[in-house]
């Protein structure tokens, strides 16, 4: 199975049906895979904090959800995490494709990549960097279960080591 197929399988295993997202090049197979599968309810959001809000509302009403975004999108959701998800103890699953490292060509991505993990740590949100196909399903499955059991959000960061990174990163030397 590919990394995106494993993620979709782990979401299904844990009855995570709502997929709210802002598109990203790296996330494309995940977004397309969810859209092609009637098990999932896909919502294309205009902003990442909106996706987090929709996942929060859906959870409270009995539908488990995941918010997909890239690194810069994560930089937008500080208030949604700090004043909604964390204090209300809402197990939002965040899957973040990591830009800004291992061959990034856009300096704007490199700065928000550096603020991401310190921000998660400051908010007390558990996060895992997914870099290896062999451990991917275990980490996903256990982390998602822990999130719902303990009513805590979790951030799952998709490393370029797993996804190959942004295809536009290869061949850029200037």
């Amino acid at each position, binding site marked *: 199975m590919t990394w995106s197929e494993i993620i979709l399988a782990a979401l299904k295993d844990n009855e995570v049906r*709502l997929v*709210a997202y802002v598109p990203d090049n790296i996330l494309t197979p995940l977004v397309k895979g969810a859209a092609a599968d009637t098990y999932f*309810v896909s*919502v*294309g*959001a*205009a*902003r990442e*904090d*909106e*996706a*987090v*809000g*929709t*996942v*929060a*509302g*859906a*959870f*409270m*009403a*009995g*539908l488990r*959800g995941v918010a997909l975004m890239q690194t810069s999108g994560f930089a937008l959701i500080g*208030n*949604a995490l*700090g*004043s*909604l998800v964390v*204090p*209300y*103890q*809402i197990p939002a699953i965040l899957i973040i494709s990591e830009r800004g490292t291992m061959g990034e060509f856009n300096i704007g991505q490199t700065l928000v990549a550096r603020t991401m993990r310190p921000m998660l740590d400051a908010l007390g949100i558990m996060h895992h960097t997914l870099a290896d196909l062999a451990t991917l399903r275990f980490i996903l499955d256990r982390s998602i279960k822990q999130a719902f059991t303990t009513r805590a959000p979790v951030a799952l960061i998709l490393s370029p080591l797993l996804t190959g990174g942004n295809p536009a990163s290869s061949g850029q030397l200037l």
Partner: protein
Amino acid sequence: MSTERSLAKTLNRTALTRRLVQRLTHEEAVVAGLGNTNFDLIAAGHRPQNFYMLGSMGLACPIALGVALAQPNRGVIALEGDGSILMALGCLTTIANVKPRNLTVIIWDNGIYQITGKQATATAGVTDIAAVARGAGIAHSEWVRDEAHFDALLDRRFEDGGPRLLAAKIDDQPGQGRPLRDPVLIRAAFMKGLGTSRSDAFDV
């Protein structure tokens, strides 16, 4: 400015919220934006299906969309101020495209950031929220002309015919109540009200 908005009578949020709550006879979920919007929701009498935001300005509509998707047979109402919706106009395009039949959005528009010192919002200038919503693709978006019109717009089952958006021009009177500032309790009570709590043995 549209003709419709200029024809809208200036109403009172406290009174309109009470009129709304009186018409909720099917355990509809209400997601209220922060500040005066949820002050008036709790002033109308707490209901188990109420959700009160203590922050996350602009996310009442996205949260309500999530509730609406999870429980398509329950009517869901999002209450939001003009300042809040101006912060999150993109969510109107999302709602328009998702087309939840059970979602109604009500915007209280007094043209000011009331709670931070009554600074003017864009709606005090040339921006027309109902027109913005129509442009976003929510075809059923209209201004509330007066109290009787508000009642007439609400005289339908909330779980059908949406998404809809009502914009009400309101005065600058403050909200009358205060929700408990306990987010975990608010969330747990809301989930119990929606039948999704895992702790039925506990009275929250």
